[in-house]
């Protein structure tokens, strides 16, 4: 990295921390630290978007488009539907009850055990996820730039802990405004420079046409196959339930819109997210597709993880790998020639010539893909890791000018910090409100709340940094934590749906139903190939169905057995 890149990155990092500490200064109240109900709807909306958009979103999504095209955008189609449901039903109730956490509401609706169970599930899942939020981008940055991993993790983690502990929710929310601006500037600049870097005579439209011939402009896929992960139906239905679970019941998001100064401001913030999310994701995916087209016209490396490539070149299969890599380089150059011919044919307007060029390009692309498979099978003992996460940053470092590299890295750091700050803030609030203040110190002072929440923020920060530092040595566990997280959302959402819409069903019925639903989801995961998006719908409906059955089976005989009826 050049001095200019370092200057941009250090200035952005220092600016984010200083801005957070300054905007959160003068915190003397535990209540204000937990939840500052004072934000305008624009701030609420950007805070919601900055929380969801972690660094891995900006690193992985372009790589996802590189490998699989635009179809991933369908994953977000259900989100606007969820925003409407949460705005209409969840927000007014949360505001009316003046809750600090989503789980606090469950005690007034059901009982203490349901509140404590969901709060503990959140703390477990989100606590581990907070470590991954820091670890995942750090490992990618360290691999591409050759930085040592441990200090990279420590810099991101400590920076977040400093301003989150100093200023609480207010600092997190205001800093997210600055971070959103840095992220937007970084991604827009990267897109602009990529456009400018396309080979002479190739327009952006030409690049997308080449990507279209390669099947990467597949934004809508209409398929009823449940095993097909990203389709119009799985996105609209499964995606809506996932978004409902995430935004309606995950405290890291609930806390963001509860900062709205009124119901109207919270609602407008959520609806702003509902309006902007799909085009924003589509833009990031189009960035990835353009990177793909760039590498069709310019030969790419055989694998985007330079550490894996270096190991393969010096490993036991170095000879075979080098020969296969040379074969791939030849095939990639031929593919680039065929892609350039295709662009010329597209400019000619001659239909027959275009068809011939498309056939030739597809054949060359197929040969290059085969050559790549041949090469990567000699990496990492025959099981090469996916390089999807490394595509974008590898391109940025290899092809973008000085200054822009620093700005994109600042955007990655800003995204990592905005997501993990919201997580630490929510973890600390839930620890204080649902566990410490509810179970241990029911009559504590406001001063004690402030001190305890700050200590909880530091504690969760240290836990997240520690988990991130250890995560490198347990790759399979990292993957397992991601999978486990997706298994719990459906049943938790089901508990909230029963709370909102089945007013006669009590605490014990929903508690039993949640356990049964969790077993159903786990059975689907282990025994079927159903895409994880559907687990949210299956888990939620299982809770609703089973709680109704339990309620009707026991109501009229032992009312206590189904808990208190609200």
């Amino acid at each position, binding site marked *: 990295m050049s001095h200019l890149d370092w200057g941009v990155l250090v200035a952005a990092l220092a600016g984010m921390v200083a801005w957070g500490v300054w905007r959160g200064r003068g915190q003397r109240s535990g209540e204000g630290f937990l939840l500052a109900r004072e934000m305008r709807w624009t701030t609420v909306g950007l805070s919601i978007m900055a929380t969801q958009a972690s660094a891995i979103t900006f690193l992985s999504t372009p790589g996802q488009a590189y490998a699989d095209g635009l179809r991933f955008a369908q994953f977000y189609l259900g989100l*606007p539907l969820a925003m409407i449901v949460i705005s209409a039903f969840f927000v007014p109730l949360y505001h009316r009850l003046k809750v600090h956490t989503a789980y606090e509401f469950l005690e007034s609706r059901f009982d203490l055990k349901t509140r404590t169970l969901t709060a503990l599930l959140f703390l477990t899942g989100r606590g581990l996820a907070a470590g991954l939020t820091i670890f995942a981008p750090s490992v990618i940055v360290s691999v591409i730039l050759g930085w040592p991993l441990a200090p990279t993790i420590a810099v991101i983690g400590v920076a977040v802990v400093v301003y989150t502990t100093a200023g609480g929710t207010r600092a997190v929310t205001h800093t997210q405004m600055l971070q959103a601006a840095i992220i937007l500037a970084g991604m827009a600049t990267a897109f602009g420079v990529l456009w400018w870097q396309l080979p002479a005579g190739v327009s952006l439209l030409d690049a997308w046409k080449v990507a279209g011939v390669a099947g990467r402009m597949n934004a*809508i896929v209409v398929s009823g196959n449940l095993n097909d992960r990203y389709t119009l139906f799985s996105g609209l239905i499964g995606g809506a339930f996932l978004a409902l679970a995430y935004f309606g019941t995950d405290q890291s998001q609930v806390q963001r819109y509860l900062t709205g100064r009124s119901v109207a401001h919270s609602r407008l913030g959520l*609806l702003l997210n*509902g309006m902007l999310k799909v085009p924003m994701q589509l833009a990031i995916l189009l960035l990835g597709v353009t990177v793909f087209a760039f590498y069709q016209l310019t030969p790419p490396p055989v694998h985007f993880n330079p550490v894996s490539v270096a190991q393969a070149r010096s490993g036991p299969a170095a000879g075979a790998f080098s020969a296969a890599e040379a074969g791939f380089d030849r095939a990639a150059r031929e593919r680039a020639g065929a892609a350039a011919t295709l662009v010329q044919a597209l400019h000619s307007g001659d239909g027959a010539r275009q068809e011939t060029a498309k056939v030739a390009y597809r054949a060359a692309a197929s040969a290059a893909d085969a050559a790549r498979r041949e090469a990567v099978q000699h990496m990492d003992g025959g099981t090469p890791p996916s390089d999807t996460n490394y595509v974008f940053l590898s391109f940025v470092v290899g092809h973008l000018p000085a200054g822009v590299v620093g700005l994109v890295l600042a955007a990655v750091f800003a995204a990592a910090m905005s997501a993990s700050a919201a997580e630490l803030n929510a973890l600390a609030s839930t620890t204080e409100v649902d566990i410490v203040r509810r179970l241990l110190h029911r009559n504590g002072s406001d001063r004690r709340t402030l001190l305890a929440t700050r200590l909880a923020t530091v504690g969760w920060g240290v836990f997240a940094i520690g988990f991130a530092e250890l995560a490198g040595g347990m790759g399979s566990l990292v993957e397992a934590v991601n999978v486990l997280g997706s298994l719990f959302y459906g049943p938790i959402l089901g508990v909230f749906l029963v709370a909102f819409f089945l007013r006669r069903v009590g605490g014990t019925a929903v508690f039993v139903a949640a356990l049964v639903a969790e077993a159903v989801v786990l059975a689907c995961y282990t025994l079927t190939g159903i895409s994880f998006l559907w687990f949210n719908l299956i888990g939620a409906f299982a809770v609703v169905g089973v709680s109704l059955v339990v309620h009707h089976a026991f109501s009229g005989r032992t009312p206590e057995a189904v808990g208190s009826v609200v």
Partner: protein
Amino acid sequence: MAEAGPAVTSSETPLFGGSWRRLYLLVLANLAFWIGAMALITWAFA
């Protein structure tokens, strides 16, 4: 979306009524627009 938004308080917030219904319809129309745009992209670049 106007900055002021519908002037409601938490105790008298309608679920779907009044200007909120128009806002929800706007969000749905925006979603329909982007699904249409994505379908058009799929068709045009196929």
